[in-house]
């Protein structure tokens, strides 16, 4: 009985959230400054985090993140609702990061596009993979951040959009203009690269 009431309340809350988001989007379409401020509040840390990991320089990342929201504000009336507003926003962010990289003519260190050894896995004690403990291991996070930065833009974007921003394969494929299979293989390679980085750190016992 309690479970039913809880589920009903949760469903109602989700519906209310969806309705309020739709109303917010409608106001943003009319370039309502106040409404867009709320939109920025909701997405700024996610967009900033994505851009920060895509663009190596912190100052430049801040500029690009601002540009993302300014572009979104200018073009909100063109948002047709075919994808989620989150996907639309990350599409803008992704393209601005790629444009910036092209302008700067940066070519990040590339990871070879070959399948890693079949069945390879990180040989670590199970306790290490407990989320609570991982959350406390800032050194390991720094290693992962370095691993993310060291991979190619193609792999990094797919890894961040899928594993970090939780976007579905189809939307990422549409955003990057590649087939879903390519998205999956890039994701696999990106994760495999990170596996190797973390494994090397754990085997060596120190940050590379």
């Amino acid at each position, binding site marked *: 009985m309690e479970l039913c009431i809880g589920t009903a309340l949760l469903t109602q809350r989700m519906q209310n959230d969806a309705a309020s988001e739709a109303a917010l989007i409608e106001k943003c379409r009319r370039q309502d400054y106040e409404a867009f401020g709320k939109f*920025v509040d909701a997405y700024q840390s996610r967009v900033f985090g994505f851009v920060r990991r895509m663009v190596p320089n912190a100052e430049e990342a801040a500029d690009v993140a*601002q540009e993302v929201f*300014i572009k979104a504000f200018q073009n909100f009336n063109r948002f047709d609702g075919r994808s989620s507003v989150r996907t639309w926003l990350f599409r803008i962010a992704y393209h601005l990061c790629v444009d910036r990289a092209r302008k700067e003519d940066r070519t990040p260190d590339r990871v070879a596009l070959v399948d890693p050894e079949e069945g390879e*896995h990180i040989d670590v004690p199970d306790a290490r993979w407990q989320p609570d403990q991982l959350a406390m291991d800032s050194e390991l996070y720094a290693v992962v951040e370095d691993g993310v930065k060291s991979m190619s833009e193609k792999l990094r974007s797919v890894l*961040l959009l899928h*594993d970090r921003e939780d976007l579905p394969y189809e939307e990422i494929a549409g955003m990057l203009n590649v087939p879903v299979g390519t998205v999956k293989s890039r994701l696999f390679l990106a994760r495999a690269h990170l596996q190797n980085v973390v494994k090397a750190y754990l085997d060596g016992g120190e940050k590379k």
Partner: protein
Amino acid sequence: MNENFKNIDEKLNSGPQQMVAHLVSSLPSEEPSMLWRSGLNEALRAQSRKAERRRRFFWVLRPLSLTTACALAALLVVRPMMMPPSLSTPKAHAMVSNGIERDLMDLHQNDMRAFDVGGAGLDPTEAARTSSVTQVSWTDDSEADLEL
């Protein structure tokens, strides 16, 4: 092809891959600074003002252009109806223009006839000379009258 997809899906769902996915999703998020947000607000406010100005401009321009277009259309439709029937056809225009030409020709011919009869008249030097001679003779006559 399908087997390849199945294969990659299996690979992506394997333990180590899922662990890396979890690690990436639990990376600490980075909050932008207040300075960043303030700069963004400033830029957005400027954009908002620009958009508002553009909206107002079009709000004024649209009815204005509509009114002008309507007025022009009305003028084009109403004007021929307002003109007298004699002037509203091309033939009438031709007649009018023929009349003016004929008047001009008549005027010219009259001038020519007057020239033939009366000549060109005095030129300015002849006119001056004639005028001084007349004055002298008039003065002389007056003096003689006084002596008498």
